[in-house]
Each structure stands twice: as C-alpha cells, then as structure tokens.
C-alpha cells in the first residue's frame, strides 16, 4: 500500500571529486505540493533528475510510488511527469506533433490519445499555438508546452525543475496558477529560487544546501516563530510626562519570554520605542500585563515577520553544517 509518493533515503551523488548530494533523506506523502529550495549547486536538480531517472545515484535509494527508480525504472517513470531545467523541446516540431509524439512514446492508449492531448492543451492554454513550430514560441508558451508534455499521461507525480525561470512577471503568475491548479489532484515537487513562489504555491518547503537537507517545514512556520521573532512596541506614560528609557528597558527585559531589548526611535514627544526579540512563545500577553502594571500606555505592538529570505539565507549561508530542522 503506497502511502508516500516519494521516499528518498541516504541519497548521495558524486561527480568525480565533487559531491552533489551528501546523504539526502525525505518523504513526500501523496497530494502534497512541495517546494524545493536551495542555492545554485545545492543539489536540487540532481535530486529531481534522480527521481526522474536521468541520473543514477551513487548510493542510497529513491522510490516513487513504492517503485525504486533504479531497479524498476520504467515502471517508476510511468508515474512521473517531468519538466527538466531549461525545458528541452524538439524545436523544429509543431506543438501538436510534439504532443502526439510524446503520447506515442509514453504509450498512451490510442483510444485515449486525442482526448488526453486535448485536455492537456486546454489546461495549459495552448489552443492558439497548436500549429506553430516550437521555435517560434515565446518563453511562456514554451514553458506551457513543457508542462503539457509533463501532464499528458496524467501522472501521479509532477517533477518541475525551475518551472518559472526566465519568465516575465505576468507569465510567472500564469504558470503558478497552473501549478496550483495541478496541485489539487497531484503530488508536485518543484524547485525554484524565487522564494515568494514557494509561499504562494507550496504547502511544504524543503531547503537543501551543500547536498543536505537543512530545513523541512511549512512556509508559514519558516517565516514566523520557529526560533523566535521580533515585536516592536511604542510606549508612553499615562500623563505624558517624560520617561526614563533605561529604566523602562530594564523593566521590559524582565518580561517572561523576552530575550533581548533594543531601544529604537519612538514617535516623538515623550514616547519610547523598543525592539524586542522573543523565544518560541508569543510574549504579547505578558507584555501587555507588564505595561499596565507599570502604569504605561501601549501605543503600538507590531510583530515583525521573519521573511523566508532571511530564513533561507540563515540556513544556506554558512555552508552545510547546519542541522536539519524537524517538522512539527
């Protein structure tokens, strides 16, 4: 009974002297849309190519729908729709001929061929370019042809290697909407280094760096609390008399959950601003209670979100010795 769509364990890949993957392991259950993040050369493409059957791992195992991608390669590949990095296509072919060719090579039953091509064409919005040669298409349309090719046989798993690279913002939005739509019924794993893309399309993020997994979590959790966050407060006294910044700061330091206090500019007059770092717990309630007890007025409490960019840079910046963070 296959419960997971992708199961990767201890995957390594060596090209000569360079290690592209160093013991990568993760599992993707059915129906998840997973974003695969990492700096260039982190091993994203290698992992996806191993899953698609284009690269053979040096050691470790990878299964798709419980089929080993090396031992039972042909069967495993039947379950996969793959959009390679750079989207290679037969340039001199007409779009419709290319899709027919793919349907034949994939051995889509003759009786279903035209229906499958038609539905892929509709989903990817290729109706108006069917009779054009692929080399005449814009990049956005080329990418759609690549996606149409990948979904033609109605695969369970879609592997999309940088599906939006090189597209203009409008095309990116279109392709993303398409991926989101596809993600409703299929398992999707997509790689990108556009972080907002992950936030808008994926329910889970895997971050790799130096051939290892450094984070595995939902985009919300990676962008919020995790190992703490920041709260900015603006305070004033009850009767607008001047406040002693040092004393108030020391008081704030005593609030449970607050780990660090920095004074920042207030709003002018007799107001004070503080930037507070806190741990995993949300400190706002105790902060409010503290302020009331001190006879102060809370003019503003603002939680600052850690952006995915910050998390990404923190996790992938200092090389590969970071420990993977477990999903809750």
């Amino acid at each position, binding site marked *: 009974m296959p419960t997971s769509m992708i199961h990767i364990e201890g995957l390594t890949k060596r090209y000569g002297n360079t290690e592209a993957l160093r013991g990568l392991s993760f599992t993707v259950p059915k129906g998840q849309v997973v974003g695969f993040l990492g700096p260039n050369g982190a091993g994203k493409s290698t992992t996806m190519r191993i899953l698609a059957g284009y690269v053979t791992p040096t050691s470790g195992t990878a299964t798709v729908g419980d089929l080993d991608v090396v031992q039972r390669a042909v069967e495993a590949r039947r379950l996969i729709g793959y959009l*390679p990095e750079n989207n290679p296509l*037969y340039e*001199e*072919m007409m779009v419709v001929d290319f899709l027919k060719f793919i349907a034949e*090579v994939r051995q889509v039953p003759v009786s279903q061929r035209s229906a499958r091509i038609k539905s892929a064409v509709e989903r990817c919005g290729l109706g108006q370019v069917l009779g054009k040669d692929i080399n005449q298409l814009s990049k956005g349309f080329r990418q759609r042809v690549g996606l149409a090719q990948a979904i033609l046989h109605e695969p369970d798993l879609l592997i999309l290697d940088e599906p939006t690279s090189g597209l203009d913002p409008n095309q990116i939005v279109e392709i993303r909407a398409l991926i989101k739509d596809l993600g409703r019924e299929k398992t999707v794993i997509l790689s990108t280094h556009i972080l907002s893309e992950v936030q808008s399309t994926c329910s889970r993020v895997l971050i790799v760096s130096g051939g290892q997994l450094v984070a595995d979590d939902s985009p919300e959790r990676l962008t919020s609390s995790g190992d703490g966050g920041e709260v900015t407060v603006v305070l004033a006294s009850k009767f607008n008399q001047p406040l002693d910044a040092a004393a108030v700061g020391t008081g704030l330091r005593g609030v449970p959950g607050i780990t660090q206090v920095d004074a920042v500019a207030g709003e002018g007059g007799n107001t004070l601003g503080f930037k507070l770092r806190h741990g995993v717990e949300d400190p706002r309630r105790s902060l409010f209670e503290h302020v009331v007890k001190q006879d102060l007025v809370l003019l503003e409490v603002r939680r600052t979100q850690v952006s995915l960019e910050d998390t990404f840079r923190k996790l992938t910046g200092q090389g590969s010795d970071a420990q993977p963070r477990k999903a809750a």
Partner: protein
Amino acid sequence: MESALAIAKREFRTFFGSPIAYIVLGGFLLLAGWLYFSPLFLIGQASLRNFFGLVPVLFVVLVPAVTMRAMAEERKSGTLELLLTMPMDDWQIVVGKFLASLGMVSVGLLWTLPYSLSVASMTGPGAPFDWGPVFAGYLGLLLLASAFIGLGLWGSALSKNQIVGFIVGLVLCFAFYFVDKFAALLPETLGQVLEFLSVDYHFENIARGVLDTRDLVFYLSLTAVGLVLTTRTLSSARQ
C-alpha cells in the same frame, strides 16, 4: 516497441524536413547515377555491375552523413534528457534511430531502382533479364547499410558534435570496407580473417546472387554490435 516506432517516425520526418537530407541524398544519387550512366553512354553497355560495385564505397560516406545527427543532436539540444526519462528501455531509442536511418537510406536506394528497370527494358528479345542478382544486390546493400548505420549511430552517440559523429562513423565504416583490400599481399590465413571482416567481401558474395547464412550472420552481428555499443554509450549519458 511502440516507443521505438514513435521515435523512428519522428526522426524520419525531421530528417526530410531539413536541407541536409536533400544535400546528402542528392549527392548520393548524383554519384550513383554517374556510375550507372557513364558506361551506358561511353561504352554503350547497360550493366548494373559498376553500380553495385561502387555503391558500397558511396555508403561509406552516405551512411555516416545520415546518422551523424541522430544521437549528437539529442545530446546537444538537451532533448536526450526528455527521452531518457520516458518510460522505456534505452535500446528502444537506439532501435528507433536505427529504423529511421535505414528508412532514409532506403529512400535513397528507391531512386536507383529505375536503373535496373532501364537495364531490364534494354535486354534483347529472347534473353530474359535475370532479376535474381538485382534483388540480391539490393538486399546486400540494405544489409551493408544496416551494419554501417550501427557504426554510424555509435559515432554519433559519442559526442554532442555532429561533425565528430560523422568522422568517427566514416572512419569505422571505411575500416570495415577497406580491411581486406590488401589481403592478397598477406599470408593466407591472415588474409582470410581480414576478408571475413570486410563488409565488401560479404557484399560481393550476396550480389553474386548467392545467399549464404555466413554473410547474413556477419551483417546481422556487425549491426548488433553497433547497436549494443550505441545503447551502452547512451546509458552512460545518464551519469
């Protein structure tokens, strides 16, 4: 096998959609025509001997020119990644390319059939034209082409560069054509070995109208060796 046929069909169409096809096949037909017509007009002799005698040499150049882009182009444009991730075994790609190439060479040969027809129509009354050697000759040419295609495909699979593919194919085909040309000067046993390795020697046997299994086995095994080598090279492209 369905996948192999799909690949063959696509390859065949692409070939005839490119100018290379017309240059290569045009050049072949021009030379073959000259080989046939020059004795006809110069000595007034209508014979296919010259034609069948020299087409193998033309194949040494024609076949690698037909096969040179088959694998190299897939590697260069990256579409090999697409093919290698399709649900089929690697040999299907090679067989598809092989069938397409054989089809292309057959198209070239098809245009030489009028020569035989014209020779047949010129035979005097009472001396019926013997079609046997003609059929045997064409069969021999197809077998020879298969062997060369196997070698040419391997050459093409070795690099991303079509020209490299062409040259490797040319050298291999030439070696198997030329190997027995000095056999007469060598000791007898060595000469026989070289003769057995020569595609031309086996072709002459067949073109004479004698269908010997040894000749068939030779061509089929040389073709198989070429295709197996191509498949191996292709599989190693998986890294």
